[in-house]
């Protein structure tokens, strides 16, 4: 008798648990599914809006360097070129610095210095893009124009090279590259720091036991272990630099032309959209801007996916 009652009570509570649990599970699954749905929605909407321009210009959209708004001719090559060049320049400047900081923080820094320095470097990521742009216009560009570029041209005699030819107005690809480098630095540094820290102590100790100097330990035992993670961090910084809009718009000069000189103004995909979108009157112009957005979307997705995969594979290896 008692057993039967207990069994009835148990089965009743199991049914009640089931219903509440089911609703809860449904709601959380619905919320989680929002994320893929949002991503698909972005892809679909932008793709749909970009289709008219892509259909009209075909593959030439990516290769033509004629961005002529009144004539209705849209070629995104200058913007794509500018995005790639400014981001690469940013990586060239930022990666050695970020790696240096990461190595400093994980290997050489005394304990009391680690937290503050790491904190300061990470804080660079918290500064809004438009503030970087403001600082870029009023502080960095005059600095570049009055001090750095004359130094590069005259003292280092780089003025003859095609990279530094032409007049230096101020707003330039170089300025954009430097600002993007500062903005990408904290991302590369943070990932590299984690990855370097994840290298097991035994590796370092083994190298030391074999007679390596401190630097040789890092070069030969630590970095090779952390290599894919560091590359992942660099690519993450690249992803950030590719999509950066406001700071670049304010310092790059916004001229839709491909130029060999770093001192010439340029254009990036993001700044192209930012500048022309609210004033685009014709449907074709809008669609062309959407197409540029679609290209940017694709590039950043691929770059970020590669970065995440690289960093995750290191994390999995470290746990194993």
């Amino acid at each position, binding site marked *: 008798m008692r057993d039967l009652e207990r069994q009835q009570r148990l089965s009743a509570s199991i049914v009640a648990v089931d219903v*509440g*649990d089911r*609703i*809860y599970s449904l*709601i*959380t*699954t*619905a*919320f*989680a599914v*929002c*994320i*893929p749905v*949002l*991503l698909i*929605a*972005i892809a679909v*909407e*932008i793709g*749909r809006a970009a289709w008219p321009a892509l259909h009209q210009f075909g593959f030439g959209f990516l290769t033509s360097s004629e961005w002529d708004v009144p004539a209705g001719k849209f070629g995104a090559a200058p913007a794509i070129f500018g995005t790639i060049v400014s981001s690469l320049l940013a990586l060239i400047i930022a990666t050695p610095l*970020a790696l*240096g*900081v990461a*190595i*400093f923080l994980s290997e*050489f820094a005394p304990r009391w210095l680690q937290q503050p320095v790491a904190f*300061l*470097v990470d*804080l*660079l990521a*918290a*500064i*809004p*893009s*438009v*503030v970087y742009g*403001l*600082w870029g*216009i*009023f*502080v960095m560009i005059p600095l570049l124009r009055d001090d750095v570029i004359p130094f590069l041209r005259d003292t280092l005699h780089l003025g003859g090279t095609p990279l530094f030819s032409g007049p230096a107005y101020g707003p330039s690809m170089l300025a954009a590259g430097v600002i993007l480098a500062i903005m990408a*630095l904290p991302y590369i540094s943070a990932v590299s720091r984690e990855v370097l820290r994840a290298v097991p102590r035994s590796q370092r100790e083994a190298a030391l036991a074999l007679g390596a100097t401190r*630097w040789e330990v890092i070069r030969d035992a630590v970095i090779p272990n952390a290599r894919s993670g560091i590359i992942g961090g660099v690519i993450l910084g690249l992803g950030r630099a*590719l*999509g950066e*809009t*406001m700071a670049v718009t304010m310092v790059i000069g916004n001229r839709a032309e491909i130029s060999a000189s770093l001192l010439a103004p340029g254009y990036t995909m*993001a700044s192209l*959209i*930012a500048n022309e*979108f*609210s004033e685009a009157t014709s449907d074709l112009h809008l669609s062309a801007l*959407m197409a540029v*957005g679609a290209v940017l*979307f694709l590039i*950043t997705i691929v*770059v*970020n*996916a590669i970065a*995440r995969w690289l960093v995750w594979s290191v994390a999995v290896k470290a746990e194993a």
Partner: protein
Amino acid sequence: MVTLTYLAAVLATLPLIFILFHIAKLGAHSINFDLFTRMPQPVGEPGGGMANAITGTLILIGIAASVGVPIGVGAGLYLAEHRNSPLANTVRFLSDVLNGIPSIVMGIFAWELLVRPVGHFSALSGGIALGAMTIPLVTRTTEEMIKLVPNALREAALALGYQRWRTSLVVVLRTAMPGIVTGALVAIARISGETAPLLFTAFGNQFWSTSLKQPIAALPLQIFNYAISPYDEWHSLAWAGALVLIGIVLVISIAARLATRQRFGAVID
């Protein structure tokens, strides 16, 4: 070689100090009560302020939080409870992908979805664009915080007769709540400085407006417009606005860092 890394460390911390120093120097003398209470004046007239921009930013943050935080927390709960199911892994990966999408792409998406059909800019579209950007951040922090809650707590609740959903909501979520709130604050601090999504959703407004269906001013937009203008008074207002914006962002970021470090210091270190 070792000295090079020391040099790199110094060079890497310099820009931050530079930027903060310049903002403080150039923005400080324009900071006064007027900045927070007066409306923007035409060029040439003294005493303009950014009251509409500051209020606009607060309204946009409010909309973004009410859109992004619930979805983020819900998704985080799902991810924390289904560790390795295919859907969970996909969602986790896609959440990181969503995080990396440039803010301008979010902006044109929000324009296509929310502005074009209606025919006018609105604060709501700007807030939703910003909210979509907070979702990945909130999801990630929620998942981390919930994973940190000790299993013993869950088992105790279940042993006392709580159903699974009650354990998750009442026991686990409440324990992880300080961390989740901190994560949400960090996400909000990050989007409060975003300009690009607002360029063609909220669009900016010279006048005072708190309506959700009208364009609304925002602090980053105002800074951008003033910075690229040719007027000196507007430039100094831009610096002052940047000082206010950075103040907000830094205070929240630093407070969040301190809070999570104190609470989980023993666990992480």
